[in-house]
Structure formats: structure tokens, C-alpha cells
């Protein structure tokens, strides 16, 4: 039973927890997630400083900040997946979401952020590089780059 040093206050009750709540289900793995998304937010702010607020001093960090944000965002669901009892069922949050659940609805916000903001913004910034890479590489990689350029081969600034 709850030892007396477990002074959990339940509206004035000392040293008592509901028996099912003695084992914490949301612990360190859940805590890691906001830490990593905090890093994402910080990196994205750095990138936005350059583009949106036109702070010249951080100009060299633009690409690195975006790539940092993207890589952390891809990794952030990993502690959440490890926490789940059935991680193989987690895509069901996207296919059959429960509309009153904040967790399910935020899954879509996360996906939007990952796709629209980061992947799209990075693709937009790397367009010229991808065209050049498409010309220089061979085989499957060349095909991948060709798809990413959507077939365009011109490298002028207006393209």
C-alpha cells in the first residue's frame, strides 16, 4: 500500500492514492515528446527569423535550422510509439479518429505541420540544388531527384 512518504494530496487526504493510480502510466517517455517538439519549435523560430522577420545576422543558419526542425519532428513520435501498448495500431488514429479526442485531432495538426510547413518549405528552398543533383547523379537516385524537380531542368532564378 502507499507508504507514508508518498505524500500525495488528494484534496486534503494525505498519504493515499487510488490503487490503480499507483503505477504511473504517463512517465518519462511522454515527457520526452514535448522536449523534442520544443527543439523543433526553437529551430523553426530561428529559420523564421531569417525569412519572415528578415534578421540578416542569422541568414547562414536558415537551411540548418529547417533541417534540424525536420529531423527532430520525424524523430519526436518515437518515444510516443514506444509508450503505446500497441504501436502497430497507431495509424488508426489517422484512419479512424475520434473527433472529441485532443490526441487524435492534434495528430492531424502534427501531420500538417510536418508536411506543409517543413517538407514543403525545405523543398522550396532546395529546388535549384535538386535540379543540379538530378543532372549529376545516376540510376535510381537520379530518378528520385527527377521526380522531386517535377521534371523541370532550368536553373535560372526566375524558374
Amino acid at each position, binding site marked *: *500500500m502507499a507508504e507514508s512518504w508518498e505524500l500525495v494530496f*488528494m*484534496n*486534503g*487526504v*494525505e498519504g*493515499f*492514492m*487510488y*490503487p*490503480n*493510480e*499507483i*503505477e504511473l*502510466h*504517463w512517465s518519462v517517455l511522454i515527457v520526452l515528446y514535448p522536449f523534442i517538439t520544443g527543439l523543433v519549435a526553437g529551430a523553426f523560430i530561428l529559420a523564421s527569423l531569417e525569412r519572415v522577420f528578415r534578421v540578416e545576422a542569422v541568414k547562414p543558419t536558415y537551411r540548418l535550422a529547417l533541417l534540424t526542425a525536420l529531423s527532430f519532428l520525424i524523430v519526436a513520435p518515437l518515444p510516443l510509439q514506444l*509508450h*503505446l*501498448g*500497441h*504501436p502497430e*495500431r*497507431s495509424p*488508426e*488514429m489517422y*484512419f*479512424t*479518429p*475520434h473527433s*472529441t*479526442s*485532443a*490526441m*487524435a485531432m492534434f*495528430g492531424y495538426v502534427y501531420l500538417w505541420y510536418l508536411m506543409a510547413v517543413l517538407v514543403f518549405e525545405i523543398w522550396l528552398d532546395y529546388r535549384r540544388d535538386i535540379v543540379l543533383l538530378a543532372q549529376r547523379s545516376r540510376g535510381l537516385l537520379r530518378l528520385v531527384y527527377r521526380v522531386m524537380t517535377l521534371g523541370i531542368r532550368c536553373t535560372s532564378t526566375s524558374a
Partner: protein
Amino acid sequence: MNLSRRQILVLLPAAAVAWKYVLADSPQSAPNYNMSDHWWGMLIDIPKCIGCGNCVRACKAENDVPDGFFRTWVERYHVTDGNMTNPEVISPDGGKEGFPAVTEDAGKYFYVPKLCNHCADSPCTQVCPVGATFVSPDGVVLVDPKYCLGCAYCVQACPYGCRYIHPEKKVADKCTLCYHRITKGLTTACCESCPTGARQLVDLKNPKDPIHAFLKTHSVQVLKPQMATGAKVYYNDLDGSVR
């Protein structure tokens, strides 16, 4: 069959949705039980509870509840005069083996059996990301173990602490109001085993159920009424110090 890219883009998600329907199958038929005829709840008579722990043991036996977790448990409150806001509460192993002898004579002692309140407006069903936990049409909050992700959001959301994650199945688990028994006309395992009749299953939609007469003549409360969960476990003579 020559399909254009546009046709494939439309057919593929349609096929995925259709496949989900095939997998979902139809619900099991139950010719002798009509869900819309029932609205289940429970009545717990505090003065009658003696803290024997029969209900906790019966539930564990009936439902294979894992060790260390409880679908129902009993708490003992010790309220001394003039100190209603600071009661002393114990629940040794959920009250499964009863309670230790009383050492202090001052104040009053009483037992509060607790379980899932099968809330009509339950916070746990609201937060499930996939809808694996739901309120059945007859008022019982159930978990679909084949769909549950084990995220434990519902465990966090429940204000009464009645849920847990099953250590082997890794899904959310809780009192099912012995659904497999009540749909066959039996009562729950905890009510069946209670020696004093402190726990009684009630069917609020049944006009012949004694709960209706009981509600007219007694004062009943629910746990944490400020949470407005629509809890359906009614306590007779619940002390104000119960949390």
C-alpha cells in the same frame, strides 16, 4: 481494364474504406437481450458495507484481473470530529483481504467500495483517440481490446482512478459491469458476492427495479459531482469527506 491515374486515386481510398467495413464485420446477434431496454447503474449502500473484500476477490476471480490492479476496490475512511476535510484513507491491496483492525477509537470509520461509475457523459470516452472505449446503448462503458492502442489517455482522464493498462494485453482495462453476466439476466460478480447487499445492480429503465422506490426515500450522491460526468453509481449516505 485500363484505369487512368485519376481513377486509381479515387478507387484506392474507396477500396480502403470498403476493406475496413469487411474487416469490421457485423455485431454478434443476441436474440434474448435488447440493449435499448436497459440503462445500467449501481447502488452502493455505505452503512451496509463491512469492508470484507468479497467483492474485490469475486471480481478478480470472475474477470481475471491482474495483480496490483483493481476493477473494484474498497477504501476505509477515518474521519475524526471536526476534521472532515482531512480524512485518513487506506485501501490495503484494494481491500482484497479485508482491513486491519481499528487502532483509534476517536471519530468514525466507514467503507467506500469504488468501481467504474459508467458515466453517461464520461471523460474517458471523450479522450480516446480511436474510439476504442465507448458508452454502450445500455449505459455501460466498455473497451474494445482489439482496437485499443494502449496510449493510457483514458487512464489519465478518468477522475475516479478506475482504469489501468493491462500488463499482459497492453490495452486499457476496467470494470465492465460484468457485461457478460448482466446481458444474461445475472447480476455482477461483486453484487452477487456481497454478504450484506451493500452493492446492488440497478436498471434505471426497468420500472419494476427497486431503485426507483429507493431513490424516493433515501438521499443518494455520486462521487465527484463537480466533474459533471453523469456518473451512474449512486451512493447512499455518502459522507462529505469522501474524495
